[in-house]
Structure formats: C-alpha cells, structure tokens
C-alpha cells in the first residue's frame, strides 16, 4: 500500500488531530492512543482534509515556508501515515 499521487488525502475516521495548549503541540488521537506530533508532521496532517492531493500539500507548505524541494519529505511522511492507518485516500 503506497500513496496514490492523484487522489485526495483525508484523515482516517478513527483519528482526530488536535492542538494541545498545555503541551504546545498537535497530537493525533485515536481509541486509547495518542501520538505527539513534531511541527512538520502536524503541518502536513492539517492539510489532509479531503481536499488536497500530494502536490497540493507540497505547494501549500512550500509557499508557507518560502522554500522548495519538500516533496520527497512530505511523500515519505505520508507513506508512513498511510501505512499506520492515520490517513486514507479517495478518488
């Protein structure tokens, strides 16, 4: 199972992305589990909202951070996220 580049990405139904004020970080919540996210993972997951494909997320983040060449890092994180079931894809 690997990322399909022309399909939009959304968070899986059993997962919830949430900002934690006490810890000043985003966390991914699911049944009896909690993943504390670093800043780059959180930036990517925030755009997995069912309206963006890989190329859209790359463009949004490259614009936001005024940089280029993020595609490989973003794709490799999204593949891990897909493998772990945090995200899904649909046409």
């Amino acid at each position, binding site marked *: 199972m690997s990322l399909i580049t022309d399909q939009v990405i959304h968070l899986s139904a*059993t997962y919830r992305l*949430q900002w*934690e004020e*006490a810890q000043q970080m985003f966390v991914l*919540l*699911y*049944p*009896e589990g909690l993943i504390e996210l670093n800043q780059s993972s959180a930036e990517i997951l925030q755009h997995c909202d069912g309206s963006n494909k890989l190329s859209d997320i790359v463009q949004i983040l490259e614009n936001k951070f005024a940089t280029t060449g993020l595609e490989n890092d973003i794709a490799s994180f999204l593949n891990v996220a897909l493998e772990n079931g945090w995200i899904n894809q649909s046409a």
Partner: protein
Amino acid sequence: MAGSIKAPSPPRWLLAELTYACPLQCPYCSNPLDYSNIEEELSTDDWKRVLKQSREMGAVQLGFSGGEPLVRKDLVELVDYSHALGYYTNLITSGYNMDEAKIIELKKAGLDHIQISLQASSQELNDFIAGTESFEHKKVVAKLIKKHGYPMVLCVVLHRQNIHQMKDILEMAIELGADFVELANTQYYGWAHHNRDQLMPTQEQLTSAEAIANEYQVSQKGKMKIYYVVPDYYEGRPKACMNGWGTTFLTIAPDGLALPCHSARLLPNFDCPNVNDYSINDIWNKSKAFNYFRGDDWMKEPCRSCPEKDKDFGGCHCQAFLLTGDASNADPVCDLSPMHHTVTEAIEKASQTVESPLTFRNPKNSKAFKS
C-alpha cells in the same frame, strides 16, 4: 526520596475508575481484592473538578472504567462534560445492560470510542468466566456500537482456560466488525494474582496462540488492528510499566485516591493522595507517591547499573512488591533479577496445579479479604 530534579512531564492519560461495582465476576479482575470495603464514591461534582484540573495540566486521553462505568447514573453527564473540555473519551465496558438508547445518548454527549470486553468465543465459556449470563447480549451490543458509528476495540483477556480459542476469538472479532482487537494475556494483579495457578497458560499454549495472532495480523492488515499483549512472566525483560512512573498516566480510583498505576493502592505505606484533599497539580508534582519512582535515584542493583534502565525503568513496582515484598526491587520478571526464581517457580507451580475452583470477583468473596 523524591526522584527527579527536573519538572515531571505532564499527565497525558487519565483513567477514571468511576465505581468498583460490576455485574460481572471475572476472576482475572485487576481491582483490589478488598474492593467491597471501599464503599465511598466521588460525587459528580468531584469528578468534574478532577476532569477539569487534569485537562488543564495536559491530560487528553480519558478512559472511563471501573468496575463497570455504566453503573454510574452520571456517566452521560461526565462524558458530555469531558467532551466539552477537549478530551478524547474512551468507555471501557463489559457492555452488560447497555442498550441502543444508551449508545445513542453517549454518542450525542460526545463519546469517541467504546472498548467492549468478551470473555471467550463460546457462550458456555464466556458466561462461566464472566460469572454472569452475558455472551449473546454482549454480541448484540457490539453490533449496535458499530451501527452507531463508533470505533470499537474488542478486548479479550487471555488465560489458560480460553487461550485455545484464539482462532475463534479472532473470527468473532471480524464478524462483530471490531476496528481493533486487544488480546491481552492476564497480568497478575488483584484477583488475577489470587487466581494465578488456575489462569497461567503453558508455554505450548502461548506459542500456538501467538502464531495465530501473527497470522491474523498479516491477513487483517488495513482492516482490523490486532494488539497481542505478551504475558510478562514468560518474558526475559520487564515491561516499561506505565511508560515510566508518574510520567504519563494518572488513575483516580472510585473513592478519589490518585494512583500512579491502577494497582498502586496495594503498595503499603505509600500514602497515595486523595483528590478530596489535594489538587491534581499538587498530586502530580508534589506528592510523595507520584515522585517515589520518578527518575532512577530509587534504583537498586541490578537496575542501577543496567544499560537498559532507561528502556524499562526497572519494570513494574507493584509486581516487584507482590512477588518479592519490596516495590523498589527490580521487577522479578527480569532474568537479571536475583528474585527471578519467584517467577519461574510460579509458572512451575501453576503447571502442576490440579484444576481447583476459581475465586470469582464478587462482594461476597471480596469480604473475605480484609484490607
């Protein structure tokens, strides 16, 4: 004897044991043997205070447990309150006496997830272990949980009397539509410790069960996540209990006692603080009980000089106490522990035990255990 110097990490996980009352009588229950002597329960307002203070400190995963949390009349109100605070709310239940109206009501209140337990894959064994006729009803409830869109964890505690059903248990989980399956080998605390000789599986049973679990983990990949919790008596190294004492988990018992681990009330002279007397902030940061095993100042050999001490933190202190009489000994599950023979002898003794009756967890049996 406070351990660490730097400020402790905030609690992330709050386990709210709402009540010790339970319609089931499972002989592997981790509740204290003398639970029936603990009659006081926190009020709804007490729980709301605990929930608010814990959330402010950083707790975000919340488990409503017990006993059977459905027994509490204010469960929906507490779920509603917790949801508004931003918790991810988990209900850990036997499913007994749950009906569709309650499932809908809890959903409306914001409940995120339900973990339902079954005791076996056959009615006869399930109802025997539960001490209550419940199998068919639990299966109906599990289907209703999925019907109403909850993620569902199906939990089956494994032991000598049901572990041979592994394949049927997993098939049942698929049939019921579980998203996650927790196949947890019994951990020997509370009633399980008392019934250890009757519950301990053999090595042959474990090898066979683990192979089946692995096979299903592969075939169910992407559909149902299977967690197989190994029995630590058969491991050479201890578990990293509670992710480290006072680092992540906070348990509040029905009477308001705050515990760094849900078994910690069995540790003598530990002075676990009560939420009726202290704020969660004071309990987490300042109490003797929560600081006791933080860091590694408390460690004796062989833990003190062990290169793995940051990996397992010395293992489980409650287990060290139960098996060696001293909670600051290394968890004897570790084969480097000079007391490791207490574990191998327990396995040996259980293998030679002629089948004798289980002691079921109920008020009558509990009254026989004076605190």
